[in-house]
């Protein structure tokens, strides 16, 4: 083999190594992104479930004193009942948004009842649900960020050909469009 052909072989091998590295690294990056997105979604689901479990206790704690505010309580109960662990992400987003709105309405009404608000149990439940609301909001942001990164990566080079080859599809954001959000029927 002549020196020139050896040099040409070296160049071809080096280019092949670079292309191979980029392809393997891109594939691994997409796999890691999918795992992160799944994990981010699981973390939202955990917080949604925790809030779902806390709501009956809150409603029970305030029901006796707030007998004249049945609309708000019914709305919270209805929003809670709409939650289903197996529903698609879009439906979960719609129901989560409705629950958040109903819970906010309930908290606003509670402000008008100092006797209820000052009750230790109600205060604890309110604080816990507010903590879960903040957690859901942060984790939703993180999930949507991961979905954005994933969708961007599979739709741009150098990952685009791999997405076509392996059939990777864009993921759904955890968001409800404004017209899909179920507004509470209660009036304050």
């Amino acid at each position, binding site marked *: 083999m002549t020196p020139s052909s050896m040099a040409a072989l070296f160049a071809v091998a080096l280019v092949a190594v670079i292309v191979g590295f980029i392809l393997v*690294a891109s594939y691994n990056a997409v796999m890691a992104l999918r795992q992160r997105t799944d994990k981010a979604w699981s973390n939202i689901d955990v917080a949604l479930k925790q809030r779902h479990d806390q709501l009956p206790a809150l409603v029970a704690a305030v029901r006796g004193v707030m007998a004249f505010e049945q609309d708000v309580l019914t709305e919270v109960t209805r929003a809670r009942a709409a939650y289903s662990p197996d529903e698609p992400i879009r439906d979960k987003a719609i129901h989560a948004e409705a629950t958040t709105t109903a819970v906010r309405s309930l908290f606003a009404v509670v402000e008008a009842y100092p006797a209820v608000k000052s009750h230790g149990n109600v205060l604890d439940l309110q604080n816990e649900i507010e903590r879960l609301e903040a957690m859901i909001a942060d984790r939703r942001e*993180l999930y949507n960020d991961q979905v954005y*990164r994933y969708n961007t990566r599979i739709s741009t080079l150098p990952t685009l050909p791999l997405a076509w080859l392996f059939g990777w599809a864009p993921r759904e954001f955890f968001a409800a469009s404004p017209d899909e959000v179920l507004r509470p029927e209660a009036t304050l």
Partner: protein
Amino acid sequence: MEGSGFQLAVLLTAGVIAGLWLLARGMGGYRTATRIGDTGTSRIATIAAGEVRVSGRIEAAEVMLISPLQSAPCLYYRSSIVSGDDDLVVGDDRSEERAVGFRIVDETGDIRVFPRGARWDAPTRFDDRTGMFGEEPAGLSRRTGSAIGPTEVDQEAAIAALLTVRPVATDEAEADGSLLSGFSAGSGGRSRHYREARLAPGDEVTIVGRAMPFSDLADPTEADAAYGSGVGTDDPEVAADIAEAREAGLLADDPEEAWGNAAIPGFGIGRPVRAPELDPEADALRLGTAEDAARTERRFAIVPGALVLASAPDVPLLIAHGMPGVAAGRNQGTFMVGLLGAVLAIGSAMALAILVSGGFGS
């Protein structure tokens, strides 16, 4: 091959090697950039267990390090001294890398970081050489005391430090027996290249690692400091030695039994939170206030269920200077340089082939 041709061949071979080295470094940069760029930032207050990316300012936890070349308080340093006329000379070169545990703070809260096994991407804060006549660079301020310092120095400790006269460093011995051992002031006419990369309290960093409950750390003490020993107490041989020592009564069961007064939070590095047992002749120590005690407790005690950031076999800790975009961009730049390195390697190989086949000569 004639003299000039041989020199050219050596130069081109060096070009191939340098190009391949840049390419390998660039590939590492690509992976790092991908890892930082593909992970969303979690807020510390609502962080969940698992792989996370956190971004914010770092602050000291229990102790700080004093850097060897500039005596700067820091939480991580990598310092090197290279002797000779250029960096290619391998002789009495030496380098040292150390880190201690710290906290990272964002707008929602803070989380403790255990840095053992971390990969660091820290900025070079000092990079200078000895002068033409062997004089040391102006920024060099070699450490003369301990490598570990307290996070807060109270007035009395500061006065005591100022009044302490330390011996001038000699060739035979240095204070801490580390990087600076055997290096005296003045280079003795030889050129030296000093370099120090550091991360200090207040620096903005991006960390990618695993958030896990503190109680899940196999060995919090080992995980807290990165001294490069590479052997933890979970090493089977070390674990067997520890069990044997415990059985033989050589190892105490609790810190109070083992260390006495030193087990009292704040003792020796601030105000102790409770009265130590002292010799009757010794001056009584002033105890910390309730506020000091709470601060010390927060600094030294971590609730078992509290989430901390640490390295895991599947998720190595990555600590990079700067906010995520800056850190990822820097590593992408390294990848681009790596691609240029590949071009250099290919070009050098082509030129070498032409030279060997007599192309340049004709």
